[in-house]
């Protein structure tokens, strides 16, 4: 299976560099680290290996990279048969590694070389020889009928952003914007989902995770996690756009959706079935994943969360507990996970 798969990848990406990373020639940058931080991280990575490099240089991301909790949503997929998985926008490869440990062959695609290099080293350290790494713009990949699984985790909302993203800087105010694509964010996201759909075999499954536009947290004063502005997630897009232009001098493009709209966007590209789940307190570190249904919300219960530190976070949790447990307002749950079948 492995040699066959590598042959298929080579058909699309004939070039492989000295790190065995398949290259498309297209490069970009999206990272929680600045380019400078990534350079320092790389030096330690080369000398000490991935685990130690994370612990010594970016300890604040250790859980994000290594916590098994991050993989919880993968359990919604059926792992009884081994298959091929494409992790679109894999970044450091948390879910790629999760799928590889479950035995699947994984094609991990990202535009950011530094992140892929980390994943390469991590796969070596963990003896995961079933991860195949591709540097490409995920919007432009041309895989067809190759995958049994596709992972789109925290990626869809970034599809309309064309410029390089250093997350910390992206949140800040900027005077000049380079996002000048004429297509609407919605169209770009739909087109990307078509690319994902095309990569799947018949009956293949896509797992998509994204914030809920109407999460109660945003109504309680939490800032938009992508635009770093108040209320822009749920306000009408035009108004959010205006607010973003006033405060950050850039258009509002990180579209996230309600449950219904997200389902409808997924189904519009051709998926035949769609199971929707709500995720608490978020999809990055889920403590509880429940079916988005009347029956599902009945199973909502208290859950631990070590990150609930400030009074604001505690009040937000108690508010959530009240509206979910007693009012059953699932529409306001924090995050969406969709498993769609081709």
């Amino acid at each position, binding site marked *: 299976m492995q040699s066959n798969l590598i042959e298929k990848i080579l058909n699309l990406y004939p070039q492989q560099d000295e790190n065995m990373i398949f290259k498309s020639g297209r490069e970009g940058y999206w990272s929680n680290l600045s380019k400078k931080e990534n350079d320092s991280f790389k030096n330690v990575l080369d000398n000490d290996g991935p685990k130690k490099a994370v612990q010594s240089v970016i300890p604040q991301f250790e859980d994000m990279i290594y916590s*098994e909790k991050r*993989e919880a949503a993968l*359990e919604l997929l059926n*792992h*009884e048969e081994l298959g091929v998985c494409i992790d679109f926008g894999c970044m450091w490869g948390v879910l790629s590694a*999760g799928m*590889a*440990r*479950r*035995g699947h062959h994984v094609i991990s695609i990202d535009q950011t070389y530094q992140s892929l290099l980390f994943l390469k080293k991590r796969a070596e350290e963990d003896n*995961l020889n079933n991860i195949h790494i591709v540097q490409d713009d995920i919007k432009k990949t041309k895989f067809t009928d190759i995958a049994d699984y596709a992972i789109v985790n925290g990626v869809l909302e970034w599809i309309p952003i064309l410029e390089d993203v250093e997350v910390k800087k992206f949140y800040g105010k900027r005077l000049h914007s380079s996002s000048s694509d004429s297509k609407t964010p919605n169209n770009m996201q739909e087109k990307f989902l078509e690319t994902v759909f095309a990569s799947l075999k018949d009956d293949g499954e896509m797992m998509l995770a994204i914030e809920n536009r109407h999460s109660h947290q945003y109504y309680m004063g939490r800032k938009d996690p992508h635009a770093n502005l108040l209320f822009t997630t749920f306000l009408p897009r035009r108004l959010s756009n205006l607010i973003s232009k006033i405060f950050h001098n850039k258009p509002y493009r990180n579209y996230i959706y309600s449950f219904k709209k997200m389902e409808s966007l997924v189904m519009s590209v051709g998926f035949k079935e769609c199971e929707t789940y709500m995720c608490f307190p978020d999809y990055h570190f889920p403590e509880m994943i429940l079916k988005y249904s009347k029956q599902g919300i009945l199973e909502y219960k208290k859950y631990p969360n070590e990150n609930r530190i400030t009074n604001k976070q505690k009040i937000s949790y108690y508010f959530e507990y009240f509206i979910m447990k007693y009012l059953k307002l699932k529409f306001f749950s924090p995050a969406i996970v969709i498993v769609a079948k081709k």
Partner: protein
Amino acid sequence: MEEVDSFDNKKYFIKSSSSLNGINDIATELIGVAWYNSKVHHKIKYEISVQRENYIKVKYSEIKGIVPKLSKKSYLSNIKYIEKVIDHYCSVWGGDSVKPSVPLHGDFSLLGNIVFINDDIPVIIDWEHFRLDVAPIGFDAMYFLFELIWFQTSQSNTICKHSLIHLNKMLIKLKSANCLNEVFINKPLEATIKFMLNNDNYWGSQFNKMPIIFFSKNDIDFIDNQMSF
């Protein structure tokens, strides 16, 4: 795929892991469940749906029943269940009473780890701390009783003498069923905590979450002085 009895596929919960520690915990639990199933009529039903080098997924059939809840009177409000559990302990572990060490459940707690079928028959679940033949007989039962005392004491800020009188009766019951090692005879709570402190590796990172190790020295002495059996 391994089938254990008639696995009820209608309602189940899943334990899975892709980390080394997690896989070990699940494998340990399966050994514990197999040992427990060999001793009881109401067996825990499960199937290993995926087992690979770096991944395991086990489906456990739901056990329908009552799981007692924590209240301010954790001990006194659960006397009915406590007596059933002590009888169950004697029936499961009693056959091993002649051995110097017996199997350890390791988290023998009324609050979440014991389900009562028809509000009557206890089934012990969550066997991930299981170890074969490492504990003096009676340890899990002692842990079970003292944990309830701890919850009650920590919530009401006072040690309830009525609870201790009942606890003493339970110890007598264990002793008469040959299910209480002599190390627990003089100072049962102190001996229980001492066993845990000497073997903290059995609990790993969970050790600091085991309530009874937080009893104060004064409380330990007070409780042990109330015991006479």
